[in-house]
């Protein structure tokens, strides 16, 4: 049987592991709601992780690292924007290209700058995000049940975790309560309607793509400067695709996106714990199988076995004025 403290531990790591997914999935939500499909979440996270870790290592400032990470990611999302909005190219091809460039570039630059086999130097002190203790966390620690929940889960996370989860209600509010959100939802469904209403489809989509870049920047920076203490090659390990799966599974809606990301984070957290554990009847669980679980679930979700996904109708289609 699992005791309370190990359950809390599991929830705690679920939250930490779902944070980068949540950033990336919300990033994809803005882009795809505007009608620009984005499979380059992975590449943008990777480049942001590398850029933020490099900057943090060189200048010793994690905030500077975050800014550089976001800039790098936004730069890549603008490449995707130019290719798919201005030049009306194929969005999948552009996305794949960005993923390849990011994978190669991070290794080559990392090797030539730091000479540590594609790693960036380990971050310490001000180069990393550290846990924030919420007020009163220590005081309530001994209160039964609620105490450990507050002090163990709600408190003691890195600031980016709070940012990620606050992005969920914020995204919902932007999407459904602001002018920008209304236009964003409209342009992904019927860009011609937006155009005839006198709104620039191009500018609207660029803004969505830039927001996507910013959030991917957060995701990458979280991986390299909060979760880990530096960049290692291919450290995103498919998280961008998992975020994409979560986005599709959640039908492009912000609150379900959060739950989908928590589900994937939970599977990840479990895989770390139960791998190699001896269970009655089943016997020893193979580590490889358990760590493959999130990816297997991704495949199942992406193959459309669960529920009916209705993507934004104009997604993936460049907007051309009809004659």
């Amino acid at each position: 049987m699992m005791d309370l403290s190990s359950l809390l531990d599991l929830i705690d790591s679920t939250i930490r592991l779902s944070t980068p997914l949540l950033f990336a999935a919300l990033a994809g939500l803005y882009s795809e709601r505007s009608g620009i499909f984005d499979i380059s979440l992975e590449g943008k996270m990777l480049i942001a992780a590398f850029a933020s870790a490099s900057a943090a290592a060189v200048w010793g400032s994690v905030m500077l690292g975050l800014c550089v990470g976001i800039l790098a990611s936004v730069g890549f999302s603008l490449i995707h924007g130019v290719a798919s909005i201005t030049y009306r190219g194929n969005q999948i091809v552009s996305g794949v290209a960005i993923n390849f460039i990011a994978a190669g570039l991070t290794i080559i630059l990392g090797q030539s700058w730091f000479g540590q086999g594609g790693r960036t130097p380990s971050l310490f002190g001000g180069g990393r995000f550290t846990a924030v203790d919420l007020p009163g966390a220590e005081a309530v620690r001994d209160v039964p049940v609620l105490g450990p929940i507050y002090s163990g889960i709600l408190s003691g996370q890195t600031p980016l975790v709070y940012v990620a989860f606050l992005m969920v209600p914020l995204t919902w509010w932007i999407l459904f309560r602001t002018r920008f959100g209304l236009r964003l939802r409209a342009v992904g469904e019927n860009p011609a309607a937006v155009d005839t209403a006198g709104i620039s489809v191009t500018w609207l989509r660029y803004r969505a793509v830039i927001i996507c870049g910013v959030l991917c920047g957060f995701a990458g920076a979280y991986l390299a400067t909060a979760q880990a203490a530096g960049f290692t090659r291919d450290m995103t390990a498919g998280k961008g695709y998992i975020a994409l799966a979560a986005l599709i599974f959640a039908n492009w809606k912000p609150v379900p996106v959060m739950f989908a990301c928590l589900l994937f984070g939970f599977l990840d957290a479990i895989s770390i714990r139960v791998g190699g554990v001896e269970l009655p009847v089943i016997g020893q669980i193979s580590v490889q199988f358990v760590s493959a679980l999130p990816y297997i679930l991704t495949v199942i979700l992406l193959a459309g076995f669960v529920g009916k996904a209705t993507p934004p109708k104009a997604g993936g289609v460049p907007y051309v004025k009809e004659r």
Partner: protein
Amino acid sequence: MAEPAIELIGIDKSFGAVRANKSIDLTVERGTIHGIVGENGAGKSTLMSIIYGFYQADRGEIRVGGRRVEITDPNAAIAAGIGMVHQHFMLVDNLTVVENVMLGAERSPLLRKGIATVRAELRRLEADHGLEVDPDAIVENLPVGLQQRVEILKALYRQADILILDEPTGVLTPSEADHLFEVLKQLRAEGKTIILITHKLREIMAITDNVSVMRQGEMVATRKTAETSVAELAELMVGRRVLLTVDKDVAKPGDPMLSVKRLTVKDGRGVPMVKDVSFTVRAGEIVGIAGVAGNGQSELLEALSGIRQAESGQIVLCGREIDPAKESDPAEIRRIGCGHVPEDRHHMGLVLPFEENENSILGYQDDPRYQKGLLLDLTAMRRDARDKIEGYDIRPADCRLKTANFSGGNQQKIVLAREMERDPDVLLIGQPTRGVDVGAIEFIHKRIVAMRDAGKAILLVSVELDEIRALSDRILVMFAGNIVGERGPDASESELGLLMAGVDEKEAAE
């Protein structure tokens, strides 16, 4: 007299080599309903898109209320008080009515205030005009008539004084259309100006004050509706063209080769375009189908050639029954012995980037004649193509040239040669001479008559009335998906024109 609501002076617009609008002048008086009629492709929609700022005119000037305006984008049009109800609704299906109405006119970065304004305004418009619609309904759940109402509400919410409706009744049931007309009359009574684009003359006569006729990109006439007639408008729309004569003997019809019974065909939107149509084509005769474009001829041809699934009815082709319940199969139709020259050679007849010889076997590429083991026999294909080039005088005589580099007339000959040289028992021909120069027209017409004299059954669909009259042994007139009359080749142009305009046989006889 008050300034006209809107004036167009010398509007010109070209798309590549196609001149869609040729120095158009138009004056629309304030507080009137002004109809613009013309066949599909006459340039009506292009002209309206220019007024709405969707396209820029190459030349010319637009005046609203006597003042010259530059309409560079839809925003400028909205600011000038112009609203448009598009033929294909510009609505976002999964948003609510309120959200659709406010899109682009939210008034503030946050929606809350705008939503309240829209709700109040919708209530007012509902009370004033009977434009009732549930503001919280999701648009895709609304019937088409209500969706159109949302489009009108969008324009009114933006304070439009001039309302343009592009083919508004195409998707409506008759009773929905009647209601729309009531609404339009009421708006006119309030001083709004309405421009109604349609190819349905009946609607023009029923509701407009003035009417302008467009043909092939030109504004050919403007009349007061009270002083014109359906017959005159039909004639203006179709136009009097150089009379074509084709030498041919009286037909000697043989056995029925194609018979169609109670055929119903729906288009992609699920709207029935061919309704319960029956006719027979016999060996050795040309049956022409006349009609203004968009009255179901295209869908009829597509169903007969197997490109489009028929909804119900019976087709008997060369004695074989085609089951409409089975998935349609164009290859099967061809095997039975039916050739098809599609109406639109660019979309259906040819693959323009292919070489001429490839196009000249397209659809018959599985024929053993062109096979060598697993591969295509290029030598046989090219020999075959060269024979056709010679036989049909296709120029330039180069079977390796990209098809896009041939002129329209020669492209059409490539299609005709391909279909005719298979020696089919039944030949379906759509718009055989659209965009074809006069010399090629004569050649094509002679070939069609030669096919008939060789005992083939030919169904000819054309919007060129002269062509129908010159070639056909029997003429069927299609209107709104029905065959509304059958005439001999000697039927007068005005008689056919009336039938094409939907004036029924009894009225036409009077």
